[in-house]
């Protein structure tokens, strides 16, 4: 690779980035802003979450409990059911986010016997609301039980505060078994934010094709690998700056624990950035118009990682073929590695498979893009710009053919 060419391209690209406010914001503030939006969406306060009730007790105590759930600002009673099975459809439709099953013996106390067990079912697809609803119902039921117990005990002349009588709330989570929250998502989300610099790179190359500057470049003796590497380099630098900013933001603003090795995480982030940028080059080599680049980049960068990287759905719940496909997406390996390093303090050595694939993608995607790239003009581009017809019309009187005999 011709390093002089690479640094010439990199310097030029750096000028483009810092001189175009749109691009500059996209690669600097963009990831931070998007992260704030995402985390806000995941933490936003829950109000009036619809809750279903399966009341087996049908007594004063259960009626009181239901009243308290209804009265709480977080929850409201949306429907009553005969059995847990009957709730399925409404869960699927999203009509309720949680169901409370009140046992027959609710409100009955025998000092020796079982504590009544309130059974809760929550929708893990909405981890934030599920968690809040769960907590709310637990608190309501706990308080109510204490009140009931207090009434019962004072009948015996005893002080209820002497007793530690927690209610049992058993939970069952549909769809997202671990009820993962911000802290769990943060390392993975960081990866998604890093696709913004990659998007900017794809756009930049498409812009050169549209403006005709790529035609000038491919007619020069520039080394094509240096050309692509040089264009990529500044975005890699900005991508790593984003990693540092997001990392600090995670520690300071979201108290995301970091249990692993910082060096290892930075290495993973670097490889992931490279893989993303390689993917962006690959996109740009095929499509050379900005609009198409945006659409394809969206499909490649945002949709698959979202669904496939195991961030929202557990990977093992997916069909084998889909899992196989996922192997090709850098984000899947990044998420696995990042979460393990952040949250469990795992070392790369224990996730060698993911690490090796990410490293291969980081290098190979660039090489594939460089291999496919031809120093030719592409003929399937919209050529409005290339022919500049408007310019030509300016001097019509000098256009002989316009006056040809009629």
């Amino acid at each position: 690779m011709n390093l002089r060419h690479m640094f010439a391209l990199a310097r030029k690209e750096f000028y483009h980035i810092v001189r175009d406010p749109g691009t500059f914001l996209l690669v600097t503030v963009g990831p931070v802003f998007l992260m704030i939006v995402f985390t806000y969406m995941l933490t936003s306060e829950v109000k009036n979450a619809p809750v279903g009730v399966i009341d087996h007790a049908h007594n004063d105590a259960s009626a009181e409990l239901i009243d308290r759930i209804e009265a709480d600002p977080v929850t409201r009673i949306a429907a009553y059911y005969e059995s847990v099975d009957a709730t399925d459809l409404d869960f699927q439709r999203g009509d309720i986010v949680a169901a409370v099953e009140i046992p027959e013996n609710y409100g009955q106390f025998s000092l020796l016997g079982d504590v009544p067990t309130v059974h809760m079912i929550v929708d893990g697809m909405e981890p934030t609301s599920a968690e809040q609803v769960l907590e709310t119902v637990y608190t309501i039921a706990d308080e109510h039980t204490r009140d009931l117990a207090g009434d019962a005990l004072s009948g015996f002349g005893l002080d209820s505060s002497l007793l530690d009588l927690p209610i049992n709330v058993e939970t069952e989570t549909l769809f997202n078994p671990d009820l993962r929250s911000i802290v769990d998502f943060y390392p993975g989300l960081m990866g998604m934010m890093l696709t913004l610099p990659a998007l900017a790179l794809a756009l930049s190359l498409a812009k050169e094709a549209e403006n005709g500057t790529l035609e000038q470049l491919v007619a020069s003796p520039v080394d094509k690998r240096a050309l692509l590497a040089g264009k990529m380099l500044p975005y890699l630098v900005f991508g790593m700056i984003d990693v540092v900013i997001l990392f600090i933001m995670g520690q300071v603003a979201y108290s995301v624990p970091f249990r692993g090795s910082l060096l290892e995480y930075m290495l993973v982030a670097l490889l992931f950035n490279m893989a993303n940028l390689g993917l962006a080059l690959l996109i740009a080599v095929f499509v050379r118009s900005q609009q198409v680049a945006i659409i394809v980049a969206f499909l490649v960068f945002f949709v698959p990682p979202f669904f496939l990287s195991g961030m929202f759905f557990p990977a093992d719940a997916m069909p084998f073929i889909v899992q196989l496909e996922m192997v090709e997406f850098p984000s899947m390996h990044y998420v696995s590695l990042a979460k393990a390093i952040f949250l469990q303090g795992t070392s790369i050595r224990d996730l060698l498979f993911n690490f090796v694939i990410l490293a291969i993608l980081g290098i190979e995607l660039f090489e594939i893009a460089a291999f496919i790239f031809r120093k030719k003009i592409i003929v399937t581009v919209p050529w409005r710009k290339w022919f500049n017809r408007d310019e030509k019309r300016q001097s019509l009187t000098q256009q002989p053919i316009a006056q040809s005999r009629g």
Partner: protein
Amino acid sequence: MANDTMIDIQSVSRSFRQTLAVDSITLSIRRGELFGIVGPDGAGKSTLLRMMAAILNPTGGTIAIAGHDSVKDAEDIKSIMGYMPQGFGLYTDLSVQENLRFTADVYGVTGAQLEKRLPVLYEFTDLASFKDYQAGKLSGGMKKKLALACAIIHEPPLLLLDEPTTGVDPVARRGFWDLLSGLHAQGTTTVVSTPYMDEAERCNRVALLYNGRVLACDSPSAIKARVPGAVLALTSSDNRRLAPLLLGLSGVIDIQTYGNLLNIIVTDRDTVRSRILDLLDSEQIDDYTLEDAPMRMEEAFIYLVNHAEGALPEEVAS
């Protein structure tokens, strides 16, 4: 291939789906020539130049530049040529100087060599006082000069310029051609495409391109000599009505309309002139002028377009 041939084009074609943009063209351009490719919009000029620049492969035929095949040895060609695409191929957000230095890096012009070259280019193009201007803020003419400076930064023996004067005001166009003449004098082989016929006059040889084919390839004077007869310029108040009548006169080969001026190409100046005077008389038009006009590339080109198929009018053929 003779040693003094710079560009050897052998029955080259290029099609884009249904469009045949260049239709089996054979041309040979000698070292040191200032060669014009002249033709209207859509004639295939850019396509031909892109193939010469080795950034577009022909769909048929071969091109050799200084002995290098344009498909197999594309990269060899790229280092010995300077290319100016149609439109502005440089970076509008970079300053004049930044564009020049970037191009220099790409072409391997560095260090002392570059520091010696830059002042020469600034002087040559008159851009010294605009060094720190953003290229996008330059006037059309200055943009072209900057592009030219970038194209010749490595002193290439071959220069390919695609419509370098399109969209440039007439004064700047003249200035630009003076620069080209200067380069030509230094021995640079220069190929220029243009839709402007008057510019063809400044070339050693021109190829007239129309619908992807070469109508004629010769020196401007030889091309003009191919058009038989003379040109008469007629102005009158009723050209619109006169034109078809004039075309009906025997001895009138062609008519070109420029506003209220008619350029009439005739086989024999004297006899046809009197026929035209008769016609004007019988049509009762008296506020006219009828003068001799020079044969220009403009007239020659349109004549050649209209008679491309070799279908010359009888008077001429006989």
